[in-house]
């Protein structure tokens, strides 16, 4: 260590060790809280994103979504294509689907949800919607006059409780009239109600693929094929593999399909997080600044005397920077311990969000960013007040 730094460290260590412990502990505690605040909210946001991603895969898209080629409405020869896809290494299962617009009416209440037509057995291999039946049963392959509807679509007896235009609180066993885009109207018995906590799933209705094909007079087609792969995270590679095996339809990853929605959620959270972080950092700057400033003003005369006996100004400034760094180090350490305790608690007892339980996700980059921000803040808050006080001429400082 250089001589100047050695003296500055010596002064700082003595002032810390023999200074006011209460003030020091309080300051360290505030920095610890700021550190927790810098990481806590982003880790919750990461948890929400992880939850949303998993829900998107499990209830909406699987890992990959195959859609018709350009200028085509349907995927043709879907049975053969499905057989081919299912045999490709890395693919667990696939599920062809139709999506159709339809008007559903129950006792005068009418709504136009998205209607999915599925092969129930295939769908069970790809999505987990079937596990979210809260009343009645899921569809069976041979069902023709049965419909499964989402919780939001079923609605409530009291309209005020509905988040979308609903069927007014229909229940399993009741019937609804469904009018398709070609004008055909059929009556269906509600077989089950789904509550997946995913709004986009719980607003839909589901019938079997065979039933819709009979209504529309088509067969061996689909609007989408959802694909479940063995691992999540290698969707890009799996897309290339599918193309290599001759799949010429458009292939999307689940991330691409949900990109806009995810971006809007994360974007909103990011703004909240940014404001929170700025406020936290300002608090940190102000607290350290005030502590160092009061300290230097209180020791104004002493600083003047140190300068008078030949201690260079830079040594005095460095000694206060060392003190600020000590506060930063202890604050970060205490904040880290506090954060781990909070995270452990929340991992054991996750927060319940509308989409499901959210456990915070700790990101290394986030932690490093928080440490770097606090370090920068500490350096500034240590430097500026000590610079201001040591800038005063010696006699004015000594006279107080």
């Amino acid at each position: 260590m250089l001589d100047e730094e050695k003296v500055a460290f010596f002064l700082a260590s003595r002032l810390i060790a023999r200074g006011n412990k209460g003030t020091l502990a309080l300051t360290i505690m505030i920095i610890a809280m700021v550190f927790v605040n810098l990481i806590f909210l982003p880790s919750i946001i990461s948890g929400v994103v992880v939850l949303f991603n998993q829900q998107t895969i499990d209830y909406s898209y699987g890992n990959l979504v195959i859609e018709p080629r350009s200028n085509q409405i349907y995927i043709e020869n879907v049975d053969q294509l499905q057989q081919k896809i299912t045999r490709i290494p890395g693919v667990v299962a696939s599920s062809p689907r139709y999506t159709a617009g339809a008007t559903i009416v129950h006792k005068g209440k009418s709504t136009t949800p998205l209607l999915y037509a599925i092969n129930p057995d295939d769908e069970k291999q790809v999505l987990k919607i079937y596990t979210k039946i809260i009343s009645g049963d899921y569809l069976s392959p041979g069902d023709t006059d049965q419909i499964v509807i989402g919780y939001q679509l079923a609605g409530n007896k009291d309209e005020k409780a509905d988040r979308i235009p609903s069927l007014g609180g229909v229940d399993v066993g009741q019937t609804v009239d469904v009018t398709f885009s070609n004008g055909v109207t059929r009556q269906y018995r509600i077989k089950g109600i789904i509550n997946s906590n995913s709004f986009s799933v719980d607003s839909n209705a589901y019938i079997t693929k065979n039933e819709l094909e009979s209504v529309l007079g088509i067969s061996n087609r689909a609007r989408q094929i959802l694909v479940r792969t063995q691992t999540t995270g290698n969707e890009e590679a799996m897309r290339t593999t599918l193309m290599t095996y001759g799949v010429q339809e458009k292939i999307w990853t689940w991330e691409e399909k949900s990109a806009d929605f995810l971006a809007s959620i994360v974007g909103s959270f990011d703004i909240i997080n940014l404001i929170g972080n700025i406020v936290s950092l300002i608090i940190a700057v102000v607290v350290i600044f005030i502590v160092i400033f009061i300290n230097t003003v209180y020791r104004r005369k002493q600083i003047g005397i140190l300068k008078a006996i030949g201690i260079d100004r830079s040594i005095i400034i460095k000694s206060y920077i060392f003190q600020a760094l000590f506060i930063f180090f202890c604050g970060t350490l205490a904040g880290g311990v506090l954060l781990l305790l909070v995270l452990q608690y929340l991992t054991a007892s996750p927060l319940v969000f509308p989409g499901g339980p959210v456990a915070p996700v700790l990101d290394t980059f986030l932690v490093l960013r928080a440490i770097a921000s606090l370090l920068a803040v500490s350096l500034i808050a240590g430097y500026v007040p000590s610079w201001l006080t040591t800038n005063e001429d010696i006699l004015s400082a000594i006279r107080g």
Partner: protein
Amino acid sequence: MIKGRDLFKIYGKGTVEVRALDGVSVQIDRGEFIGVMGASGSGKSTLLHLFGLLDRPTSGSLSIDGIDVGMLDERGRTLFRLQRLGYVFQDYALVPELTAEENVYLPSMVRGMTSRECSRVCGEILTLVGLRDRRHHFPGEMSGGEQQRVAIARALVNKPSIILADEPCANLDTQNSRNILELIKRLNKELGQTIVMVSHEEWHKKYFDRIIYMSDGKILTDDHQENGHLTEPV
């Protein structure tokens, strides 16, 4: 050693101008023990501040050890104070969080001495001022006289050629004042350092080799003495 010529220190401007020093010329030789005396506002502390490089004259020249200190920048002045000057303040001015030993060896640390060297030199000096046994005590645990002796030890630690003392006995009782003055006198004789001390106590005169009386920013008299008797007019 110290050579000041036509030193002026003027505060304020125009009609509210205050001449703290009004054309002071003085020469102080190596090894002298000088008392600068005078009433409040006579300019004695201002003169000491200029000698201690704590302030700059409005005009005039000042050289110490042959160096024109007016030419030094702030860092140069700090280094000069560290290496060549020792300053003793009226109110001891010790760092309360440092022990007596730490207060004393702080300036020598800045000069790059190792901890072992600092400790050795510090031990010698604290022995010289009679405080070796109290070296681990904090200023708050010591009497005013003891604190002032620590401050003197701190001023001596870098073996400066000049010690400047600004009313070092002002906060002490008569007995402690006498002890401090005898200590300073002894250090002057044993170590041969030049000592310039500001005082307004008439009974301090007997300790000085030379007495400069100041009034209204000017030197009124400048007399050498031996054993309390004048030796030659200056």
